[in-house]
């Protein structure tokens, strides 16, 4: 017979302190992560935001976003006033005042002007690689979720996706370099010495030459697309599978073909999900540096990608600046001084804001999606 009084605890519950300690420890650990993230972000915002925002109207200074990247010249005039001018304004100054009016001159590479070049390059790389990856990735996902039955082929595809997803990005860089930069075929009139095989086309002098695309926007997009492909496939397949089986059954039962069913009853409902997860994939593509180091990116370039080219093919086959590579250059190749901080923190701030917007967008879209599409 038990004594009901034992049900009433005297004082604090058993193991109260142990519970408390464990919970406090765990929450401490968790909030320290949040705190560190906040500190890092705060540091970048505090140092980077002044590049774009000012205290007086109009509050925003878009010059950093719209100007080209240049070398920064820091010098004094004869009165001891300090000037910080990007290369173009500097040469104008020299022409006007003469070289003897420059004292204590120092130059800082990549630190003057703005970052329109890297922004444009990253935008092109992202758009190009996402278009490729979405086209091939969504198609593959459709096959996996709508057509595939258990077979050795499907097994191999799944294994390939799993493995591709784990490959380090630098290995994708090696792959892109050895395939897209050096080997893939091009149609040209004068094949390079490097070409490992040329096939005459019988149309004037044109040949198919396996000489690669060199380091170019194309090669970079292709490399990035290969890297992101498994992510897109997995996310798209998940969205496709989230569409209830009943939709397909109903459509098929009414005599629609499989393709009609997919086009009318599956894709429209899974598209929001696919696009949401694509946003996260964009942050990854835009942020990767290792795969584009040898396949597309260049540290300094005077023209924007679309300037001084003949036709879109020329854009695709020329190198571009890229925001992550630009940040790498700013962090690794130039010293940290009060004159380079603007470029350094400004670029990182812009980049981080872009990433934050994209990931916030995906969080919001996802929660919207969850509340909207419930079946």
């Amino acid at each position, binding site marked *: 017979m038990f004594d009901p009084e034992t049900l009433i605890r005297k004082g604090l519950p*058993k193991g109260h302190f142990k519970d408390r300690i464990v919970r406090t420890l765990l929450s401490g650990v968790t909030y320290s992560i949040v705190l560190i993230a906040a500190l890092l972000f705060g540091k970048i915002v505090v140092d980077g935001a002044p590049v774009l925002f000012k205290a007086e109207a109009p509050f925003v200074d878009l010059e950093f976003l719209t100007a080209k990247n240049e070398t920064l010249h820091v010098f004094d005039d004869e009165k001891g006033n300090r000037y910080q001018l990007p290369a173009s304004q500097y040469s104008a100054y020299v022409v006007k005042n003469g070289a003897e009016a420059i004292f204590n001159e120092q130059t800082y590479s990549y630190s003057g002007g703005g970052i329109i070049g890297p922004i444009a390059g990253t935008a092109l790389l992202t758009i190009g690689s996402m278009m490729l990856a979405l086209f091939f990735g969504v198609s593959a996902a459709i096959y996996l979720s709508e057509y595939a039955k258990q077979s050795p082929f499907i097994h191999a595809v799944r294994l390939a996706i799993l493995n591709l997803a784990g490959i380090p990005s630098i290995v994708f860089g090696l792959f892109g370099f050895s395939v897209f930069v050096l080997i893939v075929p091009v149609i040209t009139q004068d094949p390079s010495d490097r070409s490992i095989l040329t096939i005459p086309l019988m149309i004037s002098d044109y040949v198919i030459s396996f000489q690669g695309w060199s380091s170019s926007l194309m090669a970079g997009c292709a490399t990035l697309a290969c890297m992101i492909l498994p992510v897109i496939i997995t996310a798209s397949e998940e969205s496709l599978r989230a569409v209830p089986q009943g939709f397909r059954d109903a459509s098929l039962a009414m005599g629609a073909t499989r393709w009609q069913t997919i086009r009318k009853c599956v894709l429209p409902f899974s598209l929001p999900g696919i696009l949401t997860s694509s946003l996260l994939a964009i942050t990854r593509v835009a942020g990767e540096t290792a795969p584009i180091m040898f396949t597309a990116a260049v540290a300094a370039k005077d023209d924007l990608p679309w300037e001084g080219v003949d036709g879109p093919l020329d854009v695709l086959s020329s190198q571009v600046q890229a925001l992550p590579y630009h940040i790498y250059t700013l962090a690794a190749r130039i010293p940290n001084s009060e004159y380079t901080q603007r470029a350094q923190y400004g670029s990182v701030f812009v980049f981080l804001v872009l990433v934050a917007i994209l990931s916030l967008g995906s969080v919001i879209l996802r929660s919207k999606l969850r509340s909207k599409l419930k079946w």
Partner: protein
Amino acid sequence: MKTAIQIKNLNFAYSGKQVLHDVTMDITARQVTAFIGPSGCGKSTLIRCINRINDRIPGAEVTGGSVEVHSIDINRKDIDLQELRRRIGMVFQKYNPFPKSIYENVAFSSRLAGLTKRAELDEIVENALKSSALWEEVKDRLHASAFGLSGGQQQRLCIARAIANQPEILLMDEPCAALDPLATLKIEELISELKKQYTIVIVTHNMSQATRCSDMTAFMYLGKLIEYGPTMDVFERPQDPQTEAYVTGTFG
């Protein structure tokens, strides 16, 4: 006859949605009391109020009345919840042994209490397994995974786990719902054996099960206790037309 559990005007809500309305009943010690009723009538909620396992569900709260175990209101602030649950064992609808060995499953609550001596644990495990009529079947593989057992055996293991530290009351929430008829039969036999020692409350869908095992039966409908009395009376001479309709199979 001694009263083990007194439920007085119990009102209960999930996130503001009232699911129990003014339930009042006394449950006698060392008897089997069955809760019957159609799905969603609140019988599971009611049984889960007795060991306050509903606390786990966010938004679930007692909005009025009380549940008393041996005259102690278990919703008091200073109740020792862990001790309460140690004194009130529970078996769930779907057998849910832990992914551990058979031995560790049964010894779980003793280990929680800080018991580490091998000999004592061995004894507790053996007794519990014997009481749940599982000892003969598993004594040679105590350290094998619990998942290797059949469904009925797993459920009996859960019963052994629940009675390992000699609780006062045993709550069973549709213990046979996931079992085949043979396994169900074994559990029912076990229940009649166990009631000599424990106060048993059982929720069941199966009316013949209620007639076979229980001494008292409570019929619930839409969160209200409609009728409560000796099992024979409820099934053969129901007072309430709804009860009659349910036990004769007109609805439910």
